[in-house]
Structures are given as structure tokens and as C-alpha cells.
């Protein structure tokens, strides 16, 4: 055992392991009990052989009366052993798979409840790895390794008393090399573990190279680098082959040496037993009992060291899974009695992500119920941060205040807040479900005509009906791949379907062409007053719809007012407007010139 395995973390890992078996322990105990019974039946067979062989050797009269029951007993013992093995297999599978299902459930539920601040910094690949490979390692441990350890232990527990009961010296002879077999396997697999890892790494490198080549095949061709790529992949392929071959040679060495020990052990019993028979210390039947018994238990024992060595991996996996479960989830406040509605008041809001510079600095603004406002500013100004705080995706400090309908946001249950909002995120995420299911995300009881109506408002209905299966078309790899604009419009449709108190469009039309944008704005204008609407935009065209405009830069509010107010004032908005004007002029100029030259030609 290496020192870390007896450290407090290992202790707490064991406790975690104990905790997750809750609810399945009875099954496990039952599995062990039937396994023990089954083992007894299996190891009875050598005893039956002994009795029968002795009877045969002595040429007793009425041998027939011994032989037939013996034959039936042998088959019966195997059959009963089989029955109990089946029960053991069934119960231990039910127990371990049940535990793993529960663990998967907890991990999934926990991941969903972890705050965005955690997900921002966590590496998706690593999280998925922990939820899949580490859980799988644990599953193998629970379903196979523990069972195997129990099986070998029971074999020894049952076999050793039988042996001792028969003959002390033969027992000693039969078990002489067992410690060596187990230790050898344990040490070998400890040592070879790094080679296993190297092989895995080499395979991963090869796969990555392959994937890069295949996804970049156009670049490879365009730069005529096929030879270079073939050499590169060839190198990785060779490396993987050589390492894997080395592993096989290592394994060949292991099996060879452990088999030598096993055969030496069998030889000891065969020849040593013959000697004891010659001495008259045991009967021929007893000799065969030891011989048969040994051959029954020695193969699992040979494997035992490997199982023990592999079982060590489970501890690492438990640790990695625990790390996720130990992260505190989002806090849960009681649900309010009234729905979340009213004016939004933001006061002295300062916020920063982690230890970075503040994304918002001392920002104060008020958005009245039913109003449509535009947040304008360059990327990184803090516009998205503000709306993220409004739906409590992040928690702000105690110096800052946000109130909705006069109630402090922090005291309102997160889900209740989010239910009141319809958000269209910058880069909308679609589930690999049907188009309909994606639209119905926030309103799962919506009728078909409602779904279609909101799709029309988002100007996506016509696209959807052109898909092969209309609204039932799958989104993603197994169905249609939507363009950026289509994704954005689908996301708008699903926010509209929710008919929320507050509608937030976070730069949601960046990939949509101007005509479509105009149509969507028209639809939104018709709904004016139905929602409090917050538009985040980079483009001036978006502000047409707004009652009031907030210009934000570097986390600060630098201008607010109606379009007319802001044009009249001397500030960034007016400057922007002026440049817009100049550009319009430039275009007019271009066009005018062209019409001039056109008339000439």
C-alpha cells in the first residue's frame, strides 16, 4: 500500500463509498450469502470425487450404488452452484447498477444546480470525463472487482477448512505458493500501470491527429500537405503500435511467470500427494481431492492480484467524483407568493467575475414595467452581465441592490425569477430534440397554434415548415443543422412562447439579415406593453424600437434617454448617429455617381 492510501482522504473515500451503497446493501449481503452457499456446493465436488474414487479403488461390492448417486451429486452440485451463481450475478448487478444509476442521477442533478460561476471556469471535457469514465471505473469496481474479491476470499474461506480437515501437511503443500502468486500479480500490475497509461496516451494522440486531419481535410488538400500528414499520422500510428506491442510483451511475461508458479503449485500437489499416498498418510481419493480442489481455486487466485491492483483506481475515481459533488450548488430561497413583476431598479451595482476587473461599476438605472429599453455599448461593456444578474445567474455583492417590484432580488427564489423572464442568449443553445420541443422549452403545455404563432413572430415559421419533418425535425447532428440566424430566431420564438413578464434579447439578431430583422421588430412592436423588454444591441437599428436607451461602456452607464434626447445631447450616441449619417451619405454618393456613369454608358 502506498502512503496516500491510508491518509484521511482515503478514509473519507471509503466513507463516500459506504454512503453511496445505501439502499443496496441488503442486496449486496444477499449476493455474498448466496455466493458463499454456491461456493460450498462447488467445493463439495472434489469431496464427492474423493469418496467415489476411494470406493472404486477399494473395489467395494455394490459400487453401482455409489457411482450413480455420485454422478448425480456432481451434476447436482454444479447445478446448485450455477443457480446460486446466477442469483449472485443478478443481485450484485442489480445492486451495483442501482448504485451507479443513483450516482449518475445525483451528478446530473448537481451539475444542473451548480452556479454559472462554476461552469465558467470548469472544463466541459473534464467534467464529462468524470461523469463517464470515472463513474465507469467505479461501476466496474462495484459490479466486478468487489464481487471477484469476495469470490476469491470465499473460495479460500471454504477451501482451507476442507483441506485442513483432510490433511494438515497436504494443506500446507497446496497453499505454499499462493502468497507468491498474489504478490507477484499485485506488484506486476502496479508496475505496469504506467505502461497502460502510456498506451492510452499514445492512442489518444493518434486519435487526435486523425481527428484533426479529418476535420481539416480541406486545409490539408488546399496546402497539398497529404504527404506531411501521412508522415505525421504514421509516426503516431507507429508509436501506438510499438507501445501496445511492448505492453503485450509485458503481459506475456506476466502470464508466463505466473503460470510457472501455478504449474509449480499443481506439480507440488500431484507429486507431493503421490508421495503421501506411498507413505500411507492419505488415500488415493484424498490425493485427488487436493488435486481437484487446487485446480478449481488456483485460476481465480492467480487473477486476484490483478483485481486488487485495478481496484486501487476506484479510489482515485471516487475522489474525482466527490470533488464535483462537494461544490456548493446555487442557494435556494423560498418561492414568493406573488409572481415576480414590476419595475426593475438597479442601484449602485458593482460586479466582477472571479478576481477579474469589475464588469459593472456603480451602475444605477430603472426600467419601468411594460417599457422597452435598449442597452447599447461595445462588447465587454457589461450589458450581458447586467441581464445575467437580473435572472440571478450570478450573485452580486451586498453593497449592490437590484429590486424587482420593490423586492430585493436576492431574497426571491431563483426559479421564480427566471420563470418571469424570457431570455434569448447571445449564442443560443438548442437541445438535440425536435424543433417543436426546443420552442416549447419554457412552456411545455403550449398548443400547436401557439407554437406556430410565436414562430411566426420570430419569422422562423416559414423555415420550419420547409424542413423535412416540419416542427418534428430533429435539431443537431441527427437532423437539420441550423444556421446562426435560424438558431437565433428559434431562440426568440421560444422566449416569446413563454409570454414572459420580462423579455430579454441579448444581441439576438446579429446573424439575421436586415429584412428579417425588420419583420421581427414589427412583431415585437405589436406586442409592446405585453412585456417589459430589454434589448441588447451593437447596432443602431435595434434602438428604433426602444422607449429609452441606456448607453453603457466599461461597466458604467454613460447616457440614458429617448432617442431624440440623446441625439440632441452631445455624447457618444449623437456621435454614432452622425457617423451613421455620414455613411448613409457615402452610400448615396456612390449610388448617385453610379447612376451618373450609368446614364453615360
Amino acid at each position, binding site marked *: 500500500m502506498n502512503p496516500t492510501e491510508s491518509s484521511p482522504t482515503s478514509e473519507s473515500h471509503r466513507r463516500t463509498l459506504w454512503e453511496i451503497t445505501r439502499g443496496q446493501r441488503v442486496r449486496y449481503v444477499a449476493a455474498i450469502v448466496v455466493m458463499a452457499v454456491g461456493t460450498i456446493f462447488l467445493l463439495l465436488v472434489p469431496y464427492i470425487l474423493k469418496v467415489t474414487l476411494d470406493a472404486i479403488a477399494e473395489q467395494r461390492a455394490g459400487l453401482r450404488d455409489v457411482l450413480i448417486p455420485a*454422478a448425480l451429486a456432481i451434476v447436482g452440485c454444479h447445478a446448485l452452484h450455477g443457480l446460486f451463481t446466477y442469483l449472485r450475478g443478478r443481485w450484485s448487478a442489480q445492486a451495483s447498477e442501482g448504485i451507479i444509476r443513483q450516482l449518475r442521477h445525483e451528478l446530473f442533478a448537481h451539475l444542473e444546480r451548480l452556479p454559472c460561476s462554476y461552469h465558467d471556469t470548469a472544463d466541459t471535457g473534464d467534467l464529462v470525463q468524470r461523469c463517464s469514465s470515472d463513474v465507469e471505473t467505479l461501476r466496474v469496481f462495484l459490479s466486478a472487482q468487489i464481487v471477484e474479491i469476495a469470490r476469491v476470499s470465499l473460495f479460500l474461506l471454504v477451501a482451507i477448512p476442507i483441506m485442513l480437515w483432510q490433511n494438515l501437511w497436504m494443506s500446507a503443500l497446496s497453499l505454499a505458493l499462493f502468497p507468491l502468486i498474489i504478490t507477484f500479480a499485485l506488484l506486476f500490475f502496479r508496475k505496469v500501470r504506467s505502461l497502460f497509461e502510456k498506451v492510452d496516451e499514445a492512442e489518444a494522440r493518434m486519435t487526435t491527429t486523425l481527428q484533426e486531419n479529418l476535420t481539416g481535410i480541406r486545409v490539408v488538400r488546399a496546402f497539398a500537405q497529404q504527404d506531411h500528414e501521412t508522415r505525421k499520422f504514421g509516426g503516431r500510428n507507429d508509436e501506438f503500435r510499438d507501445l501496445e506491442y511492448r505492453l503485450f510483451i509485458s503481459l506475456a511475461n506476466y502470464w508466463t511467470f505466473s503460470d510457472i508458479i501455478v504449474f509449480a503449485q499443481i506439480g507440488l500437489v500431484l507429486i507431493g500427494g503421490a508421495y503421501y499416498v506411498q507413505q500411507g498418510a492419505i488415500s*488415493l481419493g484424498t490425493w485427488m481431492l487436493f488435486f481437484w480442489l487446487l485446480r478449481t481455486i488456483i485460476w481465480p487466485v492467480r487473477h486476484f492480484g490483478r483485481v486488487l491492483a485495478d481496484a486501487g483506481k476506484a479510489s482515485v475515481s471516487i475522489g474525482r467524483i466527490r470533488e464535483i459533488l462537494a461544490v456548493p450548488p446555487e442557494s435556494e430561497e423560498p418561492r414568493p407568493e406573488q409572481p415576480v413583476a414590476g419595475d426593475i431598479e438597479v442601484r449602485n451595482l458593482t460586479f466582477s467575475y472571479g478576481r477579474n476587473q469589475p464588469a459593472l461599476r456603480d451602475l444605477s438605472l430603472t426600467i419601468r414595467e411594460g417599457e422597452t429599453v435598449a442597452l447599447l455599448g461595445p462588447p465587454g461593456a457589461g450589458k450581458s452581465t447586467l441581464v445575467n444578474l437580473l435572472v440571478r445567474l450570478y450573485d452580486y455583492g451586498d453593497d449592490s441592490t437590484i429590486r424587482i417590484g420593490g423586492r430585493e432580488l436576492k431574497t426571491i427564489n431563483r426559479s421564480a425569477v427566471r420563470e418571469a423572464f424570457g431570455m434569448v442568449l447571445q449564442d443560443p*443553445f438548442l437541445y438535440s430534440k425536435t424543433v417543436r420541443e426546443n420552442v416549447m422549452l419554457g412552456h411545455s403545455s403550449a398548443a400547436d397554434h401557439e407554437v406556430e404563432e410565436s414562430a411566426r413572430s420570430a419569422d422562423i415559421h416559414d423555415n420550419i415548415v420547409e424542413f423535412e419533418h416540419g416542427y418534428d425535425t430533429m435539431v443537431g447532428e441527427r437532423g437539420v443543422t441550423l444556421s446562426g440566424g435560424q438558431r437565433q430566431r428559434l431562440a426568440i420564438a421560444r422566449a416569446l412562447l413563454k409570454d414572459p413578464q420580462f423579455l430579454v434579447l441579448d444581441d439576438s439578431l446579429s446573424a439575421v439579415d*436586415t429584412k428579417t430583422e425588420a419583420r421581427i421588430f414589427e412583431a415585437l412592436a405589436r406586442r409592446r406593453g405585453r412585456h417589459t423588454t430589454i434589448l441588447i444591441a451593437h447596432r443602431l437599428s435595434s434602438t428604433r424600437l426602444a422607449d429609452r436607451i441606456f448607453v453603457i461602456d466599461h461597466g458604467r452607464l454613460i447616457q440614458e434617454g429617448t432617442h431624440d434626447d440623446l441625439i440632441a445631447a452631445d455624447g457618444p450616441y449623437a456621435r454614432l448617429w452622425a457617423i451613421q449619417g455620414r455613411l448613409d451619405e457615402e452610400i448615396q454618393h456612390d449610388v448617385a455617381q453610379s*447612376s451618373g456613369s450609368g446614364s453615360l454608358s
Partner: protein
Amino acid sequence: MNEWIDDDDDESKVDLRLWRKLLRYTLHYRQTTITFCLVALGLAATDLCFPLITGQVVADIEEHGTSVNLAPYGWAFAGLSVAICSCIWGFISCAGKIRTHVSHDIRRDAFRQLQQLSFSFYDRRPVGWLMARLTSDCQRLANILAWGVMDLIWGVLLMTGITVVMLIYNWRLALAVLGIVPILFFVSVWFRKRILRASRLVRGANSRITAAYNESISGVRTAKVFVREQENLQDFDRLANEMERYSIRNAVLSAVYLPLVLTLSSVAIALSLAWGGYQVQLYGLAVGEVVMFMYFAQLFFQPVQDMSAWFAELQMAQASAERVLSLVEAVPDVRDTPQVARRIAETGSDGHPDRLERIEFRDVGFRYGTGPRILEDFNLSVAPGQTIALVGATGGGKSTLVNLLCRFYEPTEGRILIDGIDYRDRSLHWLQSSLGIVLQQPHLFSGTIGENIRYGKPDASQDEVEEAARLAGAHDFIADLDDAYDTEVGEDGNQLSLGQKQLVSFARAVLKRPRLLVMDEATSSIDTETERQIQQGLARVLSGRTSFVIAHRLSTIRAADLILVIDHGRIVEQGTHQQLLAQRGRYYDLYTEQSMRDIVRTDDLIGGNGESVA
């Protein structure tokens, strides 16, 4: 991994022709194969000797008691042990050699093939599908060719040996034991197939679970703002329950199978004991022989199990074999014609002058496979050094045009001429190494920025690299990075933003100094500020070089020598910027509509210096 990767794995009749072709990969390692057969023979022979020696020593002790000298038996057993262990070593190392080398060789051939196959092949097969062929399928086939074939040879030899020896010793007892074998084999195959099928269901469920985790993590914000946590969890629980059900079914099948086989083989042991014991009394059979027969009956058990497992696997792997062979044997649509290949083989060039100036499309038509016609009667003549801009709606045929030009596809009708010669009469490698291409989705390879820029010209000096980066407007951001040109870009360039990746891929094309430059929406994700910076560099790069540009940036389009407005596979308008505006047609609409939204973005205007807070 996705579930569709092995969704067509249903067992089919074993097509021996396929396996014979695959077996050639094994036979390539002749020495190993011969050793392998000898080792299998040795292993079967030594396996056979253990019951014999055991039976002999028991019989001897029974008959002669104390007068038996045990030493020879001891030595014989030791010798046999050493022999069998050497055979085991040889067996594993030979199988290991074949397994690793054959899968390596199939992968190598498939990869080479993939470098030649045309894009029409790639269009029909997702990357994941191809990956699975070169990874899991290769491993699976190599496993069969190594372990499967080995177990088969060993199993047949051992079973034949046991049968012969038993028949010689005692044919009655032998027949009794052998009677069990067919039943054992049948039961084994029946179960193995079901176990394989069940484990396939488990794999499928497992990949769905992994996908669900992936989706829940990437979509966590959406789940939160739509308060979907409960529903998502319910959906996930369905998957987890399904997984549990499949896993248990799989485990239960094994839990029935192994005990059943064990019990069946115990019938043979019991028969040997009972009938053998009876014969001891009747015909004076030696007890040692009874022991030997029981041992033999037990020995039958392993090869039958192994062989039935491989037999089931062989049926299941049929589809893998077909897919891998179809890949290795596929013929690329676009490749050098036999004439060109011959000229290259004889003279080292395709026989035409190394010149790429005038490009002409003559009545070019194109369709993907049997799909609708994407391009029709397309005619275009490009003078040396001209910049051609392609504009028009998505799906109108712009990218197809570029693909044809690069000979990623060949026209289904008409011809493309380069300096008067049909490009199909030229070497593919020549054309493609003269190209510089910048794609909308820039693909970077993992490695440093410098390595990526050098991709088309590995021997370029650092100065050349930096000059190319400057022209592409990439130098400034690269110089700001901690490790500058030695910065690792990560897998698929993920450490860089999309705009930065576009700049690097632009620099990569510039460094190559291509004779023909193709840009497919290459600067779409670059902010206006940077775009303004690269304008100058772009002008220098484009000047005097024939180039095709697909763009929506007006600034780029405006400067083109010839603008083609393409719709539904035809040129609907063509001319210079001024000419097209004067026509008041499609281009005019596009221009007036686009200009406002494209040029005026607040990022350049407020704050002015474009400084952003992460």
C-alpha cells in the same frame, strides 16, 4: 462516440471473401504466422500431456504403490510446465504482434486512402463515422485476426487431440464425453450472440448518457433561464434507467450462461466418473484412466467456450469488415488520370508548363451525386492577376464554384481550363500546391501559431512568418501573447477566438505565396477595427495575383476587378462595383441594404480604442 457509429452491426452471414482479404494483412508477417502456428500446435500438445501424465502417475501409484520412483514424474511435470509456459509466452507475443501490427497496417492504409479520397466521399460520411472505422473497427478486426484465429487453431488442434487420445484409450467413454460437446457448443453460440447484442445496447445507452452530460453542461445557462432543471433531470433519469436495465440484462445473461456451461460440462465429468468407475469393476480399467478422462472432459470446456465466442464475434464483426474494406478499397473520384499519372511516373511532371495565369470556365455544370444541379452553363474567363468577388445568397453556388476551381470536385459538365489546358489533364498535386485558400471556418492544427502559419511552407524562416502575419494583420495580436509565435493554439485552435483563427489562417495562406488565392468568407468574424488594418495588407496580397473572394464585407468587394452576383447556380449580374450599382439590380439592393448594418457597429465607435473588458 455516437450511437450511429455501430448501429448497423447486426450479424450477417460470414462472407469468407472479406476475411480472406483481411487475412492477407496477417500473412504479411510470415515468420510470425509460422511461429504462431507452431506455438499453437505446441500449446495444444502440452495441454494434452497434463491429463496424460496425471492419469499415468495415478495409475502407477495405484498399481505399484511404494515401489514407484516419483522423480521421473517430477522432472516430466517440471519439463511440461516449462514447455507450456514457453508456448504461452510465444502465443501471447505472437498474437500481440499480429494484433498491434495488423491494426496498425489497416489504419495506415485507410489513412493513406483518406488523403486521396475526394470530398464527395467525405460529404456522405461524418468525421465521427470515419474515426470509428480507423479506431474501434480496426482494433476489432485485428483482435479477430490475432486472438480469434489463434484460439481457433489452438482450439481445433486441442479438441482433435483430446478426441483422438480418448478414442484410443477407451472409445466407449470417449463417445460419452464427446456427446456433450455439440450441445455445449450450440448453447455457447446462442448465449454469446445474445451477450454481444446486449452489450451493444449497453454501449449505445452509455453514449447517450455521455451525450446527455455534455448537453447539460454546455446548455446549463439555457436550462437555468428556462427553469428546465427538473425536466432535464427527468429526461436524464429515463436514460439512466434504460442504461441500468440494459446493464442488468447483460449481466444476467452472463450469469445464466457461465453456470449453465459449467453444469453441462459437469455432466461429462460425472459420466466419466460413473461409467469409468463401472468399467474399473467390470473390465479392470485403471483408476488413473478415470481421473484422466475427467481431466479431459474438463479440458474440452475452454476451447469450446472460446471458439463459440469468436464465432459469434465473427458474425457481428462482418459489418466492420465490410466498412473497413470499403474504405481501404474505395477509388477516389478526383485523381490524376492514368495518362497524367504515367507522364508523372516517366518524366516527373505532368508535361505542361508550370504556369497558372488564365482561368476559364467553359459551360460548367455541377451537381453533388444525384442531387439537384447546383451550377448550370457557367462561363467565366479570368485574366491574370484579376480579383473576382462572388456575392449572392447562401446556397446559391458560390462555394461550389470555389470547390470546382480548387478541383476538390470536378465539373459534371463542361470544362475548366488553366492557360488553355483542361485541368483534368494536369497533376492534382501541382494545382493544389499552387493554391492558397482561406476558409470561413478556419481549421488550425494543434501546435504553435508559428507551426500553423508554416503549414504550407515548413521551411519558412521566422522573418518570413512574421512578414506574412503582418500582411494578414495577425502580427499585433500574436506579439501580445505571452509566448508570441510559440503560443500553443490548443486542439482545433480553441485557445484563440474565431477572428484570431481567421487571421492566422490568412497568414498561413499568405506565407505560401500562392499563385491562386481563394478566400471563402475569410474575414467574417474579424472586427471592423482589425479588418481596417488588414485592408492594406490584403490589397498588397491580392495585387498581381489571381484571386477569388467570397465576401460580405463591402470594402473587400468594392475593390474587386470583377464582381459576380450568383444565384441558383448562375451569374445573374457581373461587372465592377460602379457598373453594378448603375444597373440598379440585385447588387444595388444588396449593397444599400447591407451597408448600414455592416459598417455601423458600436464596437468601433463608442470608446474608440476598441478596448474591451473580459
